[in-house]
């Protein structure tokens, strides 16, 4: 996949249009259009209005995908985010029920999320040889465990004052607020990763951590920042999630980490680090959202939808490999 993320060493520049279409992002845009055509033909209920109405709960996961892309580019993984969502949602509901003003509720969600992210980042940077998968597996259990203790086993909490959350789940016309926020944050995260020095450094660490370190990059500082931001975004996700259910329970955010990782990987962001860009992740997020809404509207079994997504994901990961092999065969 030469040309991806503009980091190829190839010194013969390709024609820009050809490059764009052949890039993974180009393929994704085509796929996005195809998925929408398919859904519109498949389901008579599929239109912009129903799509916008059903979107919010899926869009909350995009908040997780954005920082997750950074972590994947680092060559790492964070599987604790679903639990962070659960804990932040629980805490903000508890604070909401004390009658605190809504701004305090929002801050609680964000702060709890940030603290959880900080814990992950602190452990991972303090003991840098620990594998992120195992550390975040542990914190996944710990964060959800805390939420379960607070909630009581099998328990749930509902916000008694739902005004604030109703506001958060509101719409301009038929466009939900969350869509605006997703677009704005997507641009910010994409620009920082793709265009800023910080982003360059993230790629450098993901490509070769040791080289990056010896080039004077503050590897641990950058990792700490990214894991912390991951937590903050999980807090943000939890607030919007609560605005769809006005409450939290022990299963809140279950499996969200995997959805976020799937969106990013489907978007061409390699889990081995140093490859991919956020444009791909964002387009693929919307492909997944549209596909789930479209298939869901025709009452295709939820398990079948998951199966289709799984097949797509494997195809997405395997495709660059297959293309590479074909190219090699052709060259011979």
């Amino acid at each position, binding site marked *: 996949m030469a040309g991806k993320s503009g980091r190829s060493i190839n010194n013969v520049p390709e024609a820009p249009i050809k490059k764009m279409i052949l890039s993974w992002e180009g393929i994704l845009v085509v796929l996005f259009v195809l998925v929408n055509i398919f859904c519109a033909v498949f389901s008579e*209920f599929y239109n912009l209005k*129903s799509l916008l*109405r*059903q979107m919010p*709960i*899926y869009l909350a996961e995009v908040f997780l995908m954005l920082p997750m892309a950074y972590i994947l580019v680092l060559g790492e993984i964070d599987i604790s985010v679903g639990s962070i969502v659960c804990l932040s949602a629980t805490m903000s509901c508890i604070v909401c029920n004390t009658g605190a003003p809504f701004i305090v509720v929002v801050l609680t969600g964000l702060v709890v999320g940030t603290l959880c992210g900080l814990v992950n980042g602190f452990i991972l940077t303090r003991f840098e040889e620990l594998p992120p998968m195992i550390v975040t597996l542990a914190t996944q259990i710990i964060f959800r465990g805390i939420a379960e203790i607070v909630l*009581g*086993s*099998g*328990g*749930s909490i*509902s916000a008694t004052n*739902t005004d604030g959350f109703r506001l958060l*789940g509101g719409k301009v016309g038929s466009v939900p607020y969350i869509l605006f926020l997703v677009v704005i944050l997507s641009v910010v995260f994409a620009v920082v990763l793709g265009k800023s020095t910080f982003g360059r450094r993230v790629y450098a660490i993901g490509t070769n951590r040791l080289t990056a370190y010896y080039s004077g990059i503050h590897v641990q500082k950058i990792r700490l920042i990214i894991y912390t931001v991951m937590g903050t975004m999980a807090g943000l996700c939890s607030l919007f*999630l609560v605005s*769809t*259910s*006005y*409450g939290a*329970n022990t*299963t*809140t*955010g*279950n*499996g969200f980490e995997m959805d976020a990782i799937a969106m990013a990987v489907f978007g061409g962001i390699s889990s081995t680090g140093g490859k991919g860009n956020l444009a791909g992740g964002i387009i693929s997020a919307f492909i997944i959202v549209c596909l*789930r*809404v479209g298939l*869901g*509207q025709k*009452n295709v*079994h*939820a*398990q079948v*939808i*998951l199966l289709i997504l799984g097949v797509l994901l494997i195809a997405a990961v395997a495709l660059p490999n297959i293309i590479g092999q074909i190219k090699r065969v052709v060259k011979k």
Partner: protein
Amino acid sequence: MNKKLVSAVLCGTMILGSVSPVFAGTADGMKIALVAKSAGNAFFEIAADAFEETVTAEGGTVEKVYPEAATADAQIKALDNLISQDFDAICISANDVNALQAKLEEAMDEGIKVSCFDSAPNKDSRQVFVNQAGTVAVGQALMDAVLDIAGGEGQWAILSATSQAANQNAWIDAMKKIMEEDEKYSKLELVEVAYGDDEPQKSTDQTAALLEKYPDLKVICAPTTVGIAAAAKYLQDNESACKLTGLGLPSEMIEYTGADDAHSCPYFYLWDMVGLGNLSAYSTIALISGDITGALDETFTAGDMGEYTITEADDGGTEIVLGLPLQFNSDNIEEMAKLY
């Protein structure tokens, strides 16, 4: 000759059977969505099949919807899908009491009727709940079983699931209240409420502990399917004099049910899932056709099940109570074990 006659008669009934609903349907053209807690719950499927059968027989169609996981979030996604379509009603078994309120209110605002059964969302999220058996009715049936099996007097204990389980605690509280209020239970002594957390091993351990602590224990009442199956096996394997009753699944209890000394459980209870599915279907149809709105004291006819009245539920909303729990004993257990 005989065979020909039989087949002719069968053909005739089949044709009649396929034609008659077109004339008789009270649910003609109705589209109802039935939302499960999750996929793969055999117990729920019995009610769901009965539900579908009834609605189809009345001329309507049912779409069974299974959320991707047994969570409220997954049910919210499923509800989102359904609201976008043109359903007349949604009948749901809720994964969470309060979490679905926003979505179900949205559905009702869109003119979709909302009924629920098996597990109810809160009173603001529904128009009516079809309850398998009232809390007091379950408590009464279990208390009478304990009294009967204990022979009128002696020590008994409860083996529950977890200490926080809402339905378990409601039944246990109802039993305690019934025991206090009526003189005939005065010679029964409730020695302990043990918690097996709905895990087979822990329930077995708790049963063993109860027998050790109280050698004169006459009856254990386990109002949980996991607890009763574990206790039944332990008591029977150890040939204990202590007997068992409670709420259980016939298919899991078939080996242990019998009135003689060789079996540990003389009889036990559970609701009638087929009846629950049928009644839920009739209630939902009545909601759509406008025969009921879900308000207190309304009455309607549930097909051949007869007349039902909407009553007040424990949570302040309204419900339709199916009736008394079903008793399973050596006479009917083999038949019932095939069903559930």
